[in-house]
């Protein structure tokens, strides 16, 4: 009998190629996702050393961070540096023979959205990408995490990564979510409770009834922000919902291979009695719709709260809180619902999937953006965009006064022309509220798609439950 193992232990054990005496492992990588910003130096490194991509068939590339989200981008990207990066990826994908979804392809989109969408992401895999939000794929019970460019080059050349095992952490969400509360509120609330370094050195397994009850889209939202909690990766054990989602996707196994895969995937769960180094339990009933007020994702409060007083923070955090409030232009004691917004951004790898657009559209239907507020919806992939158009969601956004864009990362990091102006305040469904993240001087409040939709309608941060009451 082997000792009980966690889900993380099992996936890890399945992928160890070689182990040194000090515990450093060579870990096999099943899927390597690549985008234009963190890869050019890695491909250049291969060229300089005359090395090849070991497994081009397991390597998938897509431009997403830099690409404009306006029409005509297939033929022309105005920003020269962005264009050079996208062209470099075109060339590298061609020269090294890897799977590629160029901007002209309907399947193009944010790397963490198209991986699952195309069936590249499967349970029990190891998945890496030169991007910290690779944790998203953990929703399928895959060990997925971000790596730096040197490691990108390492994986391209060897299909392995030099790794030391992280510790196991369990985050259990018991009970069921209340109406108006979403996966985004779960993940933000966990970070609010544990801090941005709470998961450092750990891989988090999310479990509990509320997690089971989430759709695959919701689970991706939860795992996506594991990194904001400091964890290397987030995981959710696969179940029938996972298999249902994966089945029939272009790169998912078919026929006999599907049956074999399914049998394997059903062994992917944490054994009874397995050891966790850290455990956090939160009652789903205690989670309210939340927003961030500061410039760190841990600056989370229920929408019913007021802006905190920096003096109430311990240690070095008081200074950071004061700096946050100065940057955000807020005063202690101010009600969160009194904070006016100038812009609303719906999209990103956290909340740019079809379910997110459906949820936001349900709130926006028959309503309009508040005067003076600009709104932008950026679907996570070309296929999400297409589906939203077919379902009539796009029309709801357009009727409400939103811009309906092409797929990409867009304002989430403002590398393309979609940016906030200095001092502009945005209700955003993305994952980072760092200073300058969405544009220099821009102010970001993170929240769920329904909360962003509510803010769009009223022009200030709003408890979406009030608008839901009106709908009922």
């Amino acid at each position: 009998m082997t000792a009980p193992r966690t889900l993380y232990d099992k996936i890890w054990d399945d992928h160890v190629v070689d182990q040194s005496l000090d515990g450093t492992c060579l870990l096999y990588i099943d899927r390597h996702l690549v985008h234009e910003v963190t890869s050019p130096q890695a491909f250049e490194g291969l060229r300089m050393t005359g090395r090849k991509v070991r497994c081009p068939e397991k390597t998938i590339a897509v431009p997403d961070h830099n690409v404009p989200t306006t029409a005509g981008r297939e033929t022309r990207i105005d920003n020269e540096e962005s264009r050079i990066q996208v062209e470099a990826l075109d060339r590298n994908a061609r020269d090294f023979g890897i799977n590629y979804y160029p901007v002209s392809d309907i399947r193009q989109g944010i790397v963490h959205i198209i991986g699952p969408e195309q069936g590249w992401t499967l349970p029990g895999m190891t998945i890496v990408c030169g991007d910290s939000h690779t944790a998203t794929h953990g929703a399928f019970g895959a060990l997925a995490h971000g790596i730096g460019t040197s490691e990108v080059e390492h994986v391209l050349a060897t299909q392995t990564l030099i790794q030391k095992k992280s510790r196991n952490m369990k985050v259990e969400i018991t009970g069921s979510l209340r109406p108006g509360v979403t996966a985004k509120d779960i993940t933000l609330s966990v970070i609010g409770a544990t801090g941005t370094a709470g998961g450092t050195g750990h891989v988090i397994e999310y479990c509990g009834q509320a997690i089971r009850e989430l759709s695959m889209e919701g689970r991706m939202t939860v795992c996506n922000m594991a990194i904001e909690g400091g964890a290397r990766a987030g995981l959710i054990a696969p179940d029938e919902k996972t298999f249902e989602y994966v089945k029939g996707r272009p790169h998912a196994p078919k026929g006999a291979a599907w049956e074999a895969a399914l049998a394997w995937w059903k062994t992917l769960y944490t054994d009874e009695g397995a050891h966790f180094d850290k455990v956090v339990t939160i009652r789903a009933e205690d989670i309210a719709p939340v927003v961030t007020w500061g410039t760190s994702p841990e600056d989370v409060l229920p929408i019913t709260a007021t802006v905190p007083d920096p003096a109430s923070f311990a240690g070095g955090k008081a200074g950071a809180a004061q700096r946050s409030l100065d940057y955000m232009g807020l005063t202690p004691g101010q009600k969160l619902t009194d904070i006016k917004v100038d812009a609303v951004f719906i999209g990103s790898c956290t909340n740019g999937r079809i379910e997110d657009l459906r949820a936001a559209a349900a709130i926006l239907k028959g309503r309009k953006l508040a005067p003076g507020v600009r709104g932008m919806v950026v679907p996570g992939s070309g296929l999400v965009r297409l589906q939203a158009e077919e379902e009539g969601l796009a029309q709801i956004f357009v009727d409400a006064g939103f811009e309906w864009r092409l797929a990409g990362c867009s304002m989430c990091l403002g590398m393309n022309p979609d940016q906030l102006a200095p001092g502009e305040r945005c209700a955003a469904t993305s994952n980072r509220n760092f200073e300058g993240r969405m544009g220099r001087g821009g102010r970001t409040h993170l929240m769920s798609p329904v909360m962003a939709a509510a803010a769009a309608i009223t022009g200030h941060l709003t408890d979406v439950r009030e608008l839901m009451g009106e709908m009922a």
Partner: protein
Amino acid sequence: MGDVFLFFGVFQHEGRRAHRIFGYLRVEERRILGRNPQPDPLIGLPWPHPHTEGDHWPDNNTVYIGWGATFAPAHEAFIAAPMPLVNIDTDMIIPKQFLKTIKRTGLGVNLFDEMRYTPDGQEIPDFVLNRPPYRQAQILVAGDNFGCGSSREHAPWALLDFGIRCVISTSFADIFYNNCFKNGILPVVLPPEAVDVLMKDAEKGANARITVDLAAQTVTASDGRVFAFEVDPFKKHCLLNGLDDIGLTLEKAAAIDTFETRAAQSRPWI
């Protein structure tokens, strides 16, 4: 272009030119200077390369520009810059508008760009790295959770390009911590009391230098107090010897082949 192994490089040290032992340099660009070259502002060298002075040097004088790894500072005391802020994230270290490069070099001028310059590009005099002693800082002493945020290796590239060789904090974000080692930067984790002592040293600028010794795994404050730190033995070995871990892994190609054969049977759908 390819790897060039150099044994010496020229550095400016305490206002003097000095040769230092180098690890390796991965060449991205080559400039043929010829005999008696003029100072080249593009390279950023304020003087002609010493090997090109006088007329007995050949026509094929060449400057190689690129990135590399050198031995971590040892037995030499360096100026440390204090940044007591907690959660310094990668967007602060190198804002996204500078991620559009396809090179590893040249990011030092944009290190901490939005904290260091006004929107019209003027230096903000109060910012620590703009103040005289800290322009030469080689160590950064920072608040908790340094380097959180994205996986961008541009963050260590920018630090290195500025001249930072070592960052000291109570904790680091995982990916940033890893990325440092790949680029010859030593991230040192110390308990809060030790970081407080070193932060005070750092605040005294050139008057209180800090010594970092990777081989001995110690940091020595200006008053002689020694703090030991932990570092993964493999990472230490690679950093001390400037090793290329891709080359090391490729030596294990047979083990990777075996793994792939086995996996092709047990998990053929991969």
